[in-house]
């Protein structure tokens, strides 16, 4: 270092400081990544594992991404549904329902007529489309009454 010019020392000094700054950024990045992997991100996730549907739905496959806040399937127009449909009752009432578009339409009309739901205007069609696509009629196979989670010994 002794045979460097002041300019070169200046450059090296600035470069060293820059490297130090970048190291901090890199270290922070590594820490955050480890934290995410270890499940720290889950701190911001609601513990909604107690909510358990009692029917299997054909259209609710494992490949769907679920809205964290409500449990609704993320698909086109889900935001419309969230805004219009979860101010009075929770999204569970949608999630546990499996009916066709005619019935979704009838349910909406009944809510407007008797339960204080407002006119949905141009949002009605996309809302019904979302509902009948993601929460449409389900045809179940012969199911046992209660799903057996684990076999256990009685005696």
């Amino acid at each position: 270092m002794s045979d460097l010019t002041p300019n070169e020392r200046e450059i090296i000094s600035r470069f060293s400081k820059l490297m130090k700054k970048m190291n901090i950024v890199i270290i922070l990045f590594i820490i955050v990544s480890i934290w995410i992997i270890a499940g720290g991100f889950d701190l911001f996730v609601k513990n909604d594992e107690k909510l358990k549907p009692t029917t299997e739905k054909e259209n609710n496959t494992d490949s769907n991404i679920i809205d964290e806040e409500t449990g609704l399937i993320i698909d086109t127009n889900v935001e419309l549904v969230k805004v219009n449909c979860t101010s009075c009752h929770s999204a569970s009432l949608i999630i546990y329902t499996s009916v066709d578009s005619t019935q979704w339409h009838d349910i909406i009309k009944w809510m407007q007529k008797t339960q204080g739901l407002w006119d949905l205007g141009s949002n009605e069609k996309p809302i019904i489309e979302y509902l009948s696509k993601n929460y449409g009629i389900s045809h179940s196979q012969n199911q046992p009454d209660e799903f057996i989670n684990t076999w256990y010994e009685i005696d």
Partner: protein
Amino acid sequence: MNNLNQNRRGFIKKSALATFSLLIGSKIVHGDNIPIGYLPAWFEGNNPIPEGKHPELIIHSDRPWNLETPIHLLDDNITPEDKLFVRNNGKLPEKIDIKNWTLNIKGESVLRPKTYTLEELKRRFKSHQYQIVLECAGNGRSNFNPSAQGIPWGKGAVGCPKWTGIKLRDVLRDTGIKNDAVYIGYEGKDIHLSGNMKQRPISRGVPIHKALEDQTLLAWQMNGRDIPNLHGYPLRLVVGGWSASVSGKWLSDILVRNIVHDGSKMKPPSYSMPCETIAPGEKVPVEKMCIIEDLPVKSIITYPKTGGILTKSRNLEIRGHAWTGTGTIKKVELSVDYGIHWKECELIPESNKYSWAHWKTELHFNSNGYYEVWVRATDTFGNVQPMFCPSWNPRGYYNNACHKIAIKVEKNE
């Protein structure tokens, strides 16, 4: 829901792993083995079940509250508070002024409209205690195929606590009812989900003959204690043998009507079935639907819980309850060969009409293997349970198909 959440967390984790890998320039070994759905231990403990209810109750919705009891938790002869299912149409009343709580008897067919305080009801009229089954009309709905509209109850939307109160009949004798009275309706202080204070979330009723029955109570105690908030504190109707939707909670008014009561959720399609049977999935106009009345005969196996393995013997003690809206339980039978042979069980009759009967027996299995044990009840009106889901209807009422559990016998000689 569990699988879906785990996939979401997995998705997040995979992208973090990818970033990390990129950063350090090498593949994370065993990255796929990091447990999906891992929550730091101190984060858990967010119990959403309402206070006083058993943690294993199944939450169908929390706004409004609808909770179902797993059938093996219904083993008690008298259903305790923490294990009674919850069915709400609205929000609980916000403030209950117990000193000033009143019950108004009114309507076009009441002779002398009157308002009673709770204290007056308890003082002036003789109190009685009955064990009465409360069952949601939609109990069993989840087995309909195609799916029916409404809360997808399994078979656990039922319970049989003890109720203390006065007979509605005694109060109606006090006020008098006109000759043209045909129905009563109730109003309660629960709050409509929309927040509209002028609208009742539910206001149903029963014909006069039902209102005047021995067991129709204005109750203020459940199992010897104040009725819990979730179940109608401080006063509720309890009507035996019909949908629990007619047993109005947080009771403030009884209306004596000269027409079929027309309150909220009284008219078709609410609590109604097609007047004539229809094919599965068929559409039916509202004009062709009839209000449901007596609930059908049913039974459940409450011990053992489904999924048991017998390893030390091939004998199984087995028990449960049976109930009906018509008459009383006559017999209860079990089958382990899918309905070919039925074995009659020991029956302990109902403590009073509209309670549930208890049954028990010991089963002997000849060989190892997987078995399904089906239970079937018959009532004194001759009604028998079907083995399969009966008449499809759009709202999924009246599924009284037999309950069954699965057992494995794995005894080594």
